[in-house]
């Protein structure tokens, strides 16, 4: 099972209702994935020279203020930290690799859920309404967002194994399905320098796209290459800083619906998630073809 949703506004400026609309879509997908819920938000850009990083710690009482003090002595912080219980978003004006090295040396208890100019990733065990409320999703603005409700098949039900998976700057992936060649592919990608935080199959697909993009391919080319290298069942929704893409495997057992209006493009596992959006009744609605990349980019 699993449910995935994506909402991409075509205009450049942030849409204030993005978070509440995504929360509504996720809520419709609760029966498909009651184990955990996650979402990636593409909001305001970090200031020039800085990047945003979403950190996670298992406890909900983590002392983020203290971490902010420590970080500020090691790196210039571009703005104040934004704590959200078990997650916090820091905006740091430094080389991300140096920051990651510092985190793993000084705070190995922390997970890096995402980094980039725009992306923020939140995920946790629980039903979508509860998780959305936990992180204040309905109050968040942005240009586009992806979400996932998980019914686990390949790995454990934990926060770390929840989707979205982000393995490169501003890139994230949500997945409905299962991959069968992820162990071997993970080893290959690790040799290419891609880091993995879990044994989850979807994280390997995200890492694969990061690797292809690093080679200079664009998102569409990276996904077309994935058709040959990933074995298994999948409907993927992918987010980048300015883009949004969908891919289904050639058998296309895993459902997907796309809808488009002048204002937005939406993707969901089931139409009922799209039906909650303003203008849905007049939208063009279609089922994406197997083995075909659909992508949208803002210039």
């Amino acid at each position, binding site marked *: 099972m699993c449910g995935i949703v994506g909402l991409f506004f075509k205009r450049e400026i942030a849409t204030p209702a993005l978070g509440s609309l995504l929360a509504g879509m996720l809520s419709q997908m609760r029966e498909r994935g009651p184990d955990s819920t996650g979402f990636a938000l593409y909001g305001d850009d970090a200031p020039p020279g800085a990047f945003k990083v979403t950190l996670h710690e298992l406890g909900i009482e983590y002392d983020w203020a203290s971490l902010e003090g420590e970080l500020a002595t090691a790196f210039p912080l571009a703005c104040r930290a934004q704590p959200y219980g078990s997650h916090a978003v820091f905006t740091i004006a430094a080389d991300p690799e140096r920051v990651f090295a510092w985190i793993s040396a000084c705070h190995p208890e922390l997970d890096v859920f995402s980094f980039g100019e725009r992306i923020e990733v939140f995920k946790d065990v629980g039903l979508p309404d509860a998780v959305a409320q936990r992180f204040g999703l309905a109050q968040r603005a942005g240009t586009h967002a992806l979400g996932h409700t998980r019914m686990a098949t390949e790995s454990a039900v934990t926060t770390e194994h929840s989707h979205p998976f982000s393995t490169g700057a501003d890139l994230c992936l949500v997945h409905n399905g299962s991959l069968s060649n992820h162990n071997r592919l993970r080893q290959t990608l690790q040799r290419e320098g891609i880091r993995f935080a879990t044994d989850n199959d979807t994280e390997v697909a995200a890492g694969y796209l990061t690797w292809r993009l690093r080679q200079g391919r664009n998102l569409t080319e990276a996904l077309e290459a994935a058709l040959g290298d990933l074995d298994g069942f999948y409907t993927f929704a992918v987010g980048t800083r300015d883009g949004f893409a969908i891919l289904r495997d050639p058998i*296309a057992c895993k459902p997907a619906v796309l809808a488009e209006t002048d204002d937005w493009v939406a993707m969901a596992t089931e*139409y*009922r998630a799209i*039906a909650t959006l303003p203008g849905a009744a007049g939208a063009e609605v279609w089922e994406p073809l197997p083995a075909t990349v659909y992508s949208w980019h803002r210039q």
Partner: protein
Amino acid sequence: MIEIDLAQSSVRELNQRLHRIGPGDNEHHWHVVNPNGAHAIAVGLTAPVHIEIRGHVGYYCAGMNAVATVVVDGHAGTGLAENIMSGLVRVRGNAAQSAAASGRGGLVVIEGDASARCGISMKGVTIVVGGSVGHMSAFMGQSGALVICGDAGHDLGDSIYEADIFVGGKIASLGADCVEKEMTPADFDRVAALLGCAQIAADAERFRHYGSARRLYNFRIDHAAEY
């Protein structure tokens, strides 16, 4: 005419009311509004009612239908008219995968396109698609007819038994044991009649006929080495 607003009442309440209709009842015409992609609308009907649903429906709409007429004025999700026994199910838009799966009888009309596995394991249903169908349509079809006015995706009629497939457009590829067959005068008449029943405007003369080569029916000694 009875109108049910699914923004106000649940699918379960609707279906229970439809299931309670008895032989002497006069509740024949129903309109359902605001389906908003809900699943299992008008499933398991056994009374001769006419139901028009205005909007897009979710999975398994009109599943197991007997006698009733169900019209969807929108698109339909996975498993439309699954295991239909008799009656008519019409979708004015497109249908997602596995439309009319395992259908035993009746008529399913999809005015737009149907996606993958349309008519999978069909067992007597008649399906008329105004547009095109996706891959593996009529997979393991046992009897009945699938009429496709547009094009067919890959592996059409894979492992088919005795269903008949009629295609007006192009075929990406035929599946295992599916072959082109002669289009007899009776076949042209049959396609014209089915298009008429379905109220789909298409010229029967351009259709071609596909079905089983019957090479998978029995074990062939030539294949012994493959086991």
